[in-house]
């Protein structure tokens, strides 16, 4: 994107690289949170023998995951709004590539956000080691 005429006047999130790697950030966070949830439940049940009254570590991990997904989604949301031709973003230009990947990232972020919430809800409603 170095040939972009606006150069350094772009905002920080607009200057960020958009690749397939940034695309999979939200689902990766979701997957990590999923694994974290199971490990946390297994370890805390095994160590304490009972379900934690207030699962501080779990809440912190969930908030962190949600924040990471929200940030990724917000960046993608701003990148989608960068000036360019209307959808479908199917041309071989930098701006089309960016807007396509950003849109896909935004949708994945929405899905992952809900996914993390769905993974976390059982802790609130079941709260039992059995």
């Amino acid at each position, binding site marked *: 994107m170095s040939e972009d005429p606006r150069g350094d006047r772009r905002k920080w999130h607009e200057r960020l690289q958009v690749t397939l790697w940034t695309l999979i950030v939200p689902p990766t966070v979701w997957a990590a949170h999923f694994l974290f949830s199971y490990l946390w439940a297994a370890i805390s049940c095994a160590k304490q023998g009972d379900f934690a009254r207030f699962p501080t570590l779990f809440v912190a991990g969930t908030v962190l995951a949600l924040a990471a997904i929200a940030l990724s989604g917000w960046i993608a949301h701003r990148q989608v709004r960068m000036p360019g031709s209307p959808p479908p973003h199917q041309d071989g230009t930098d701006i089309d590539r960016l807007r396509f990947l950003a849109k896909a990232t935004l949708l994945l972020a929405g899905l992952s956000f*809900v996914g993390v919430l*769905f993974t976390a*809800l*059982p802790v609130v*409603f*079941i*709260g*039992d080691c*059995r």
Partner: protein
Amino acid sequence: MRKSIAAPSVTLASVTVATLVLAGCNGHQSALAPFGLEARSTLWLTAVLAAGGSVIALGMAAIYFVAARAPEGKLTHQSGMRLVLWLGAVVPTVVLTALLVWALPAMRPLPTGDSDLHIRVEGEQFWWRVAYARSDDKGLNGRTEPLLLSANEVRLPVGRTVVFELTATDVIHSFWIPGLAGKMDMIPGRTNRLVVKAEKPGTYRGVCAEFCGLSHALMAFDVIAMEPAAFDAWLTAARIPPRRTQDRGAALFAREGCGSCHALAGTSAQARIGPDLTRFGERLTLGAGILEPTDGHTAAFIRDPHRFKPGARMPAYTHLTQEEALALARWLKQTKAENAR
């Protein structure tokens, strides 16, 4: 022309299928006829899901219908995308979240207390070893004897929390009383807990729900949910060994070595290899839920168990005459005469 031929055959096919499906309906072994807390909430959840799913399917069909018949140019790309956003993302998310929040509390195990009745059930090829105990008696840890040993029959007090401790001795079985709660695996070397609460007195049936061998389908048991007072009275009475006559049946029981595998409380027969026969006369079925407990059936089962239960471990006693087998059957049933429930 074609229509008039097709319509009756479709009706006939529907009626046939419906009849076949409805033939499976019963009140004693069905998740659709619950008598326990968990089965009842599961049925309600199933009904809501089925109704909601039908409404969604019909609604989608209606939208397809309208979209396919809409005049040219009436539908715009933007309105289509908005529809996808709302009906494809927002509404499903809200509906699924609501369902999750509603259904999760039903998955929470019932709270248990120290005085709750524990029933330990061990799956065997192809029957059930049953032991009753109170958890505060430490009865199931081998430190003290359980309150009562039984087989192929489970009795429950209505309205009280009961903890099933489920395990197996040979292969994996699965303990399932459809009207009471979900099924639970019985795994050798491991004890699984299933906490239940019966809500309606009656006679029901449970089955093995994990293929376990030749007679897997012939491995069932009776479930009797009783009013708490009646249950307590039964448990107290059942712990007193019935008095048996010392007649020909007793002699046959001793001569044939039945006590090497079976137990009869109050006698020298204390083996735990086969089903406990102390309360045999009280049982509603013979051979783990498969036969009417008549003297004739019992005699025939003793002489040739494999005719009724292929793969059963019990040896055949074909050398017994029919008359001897009948005498033994009648003698075994003496529980009933002495200690009727």
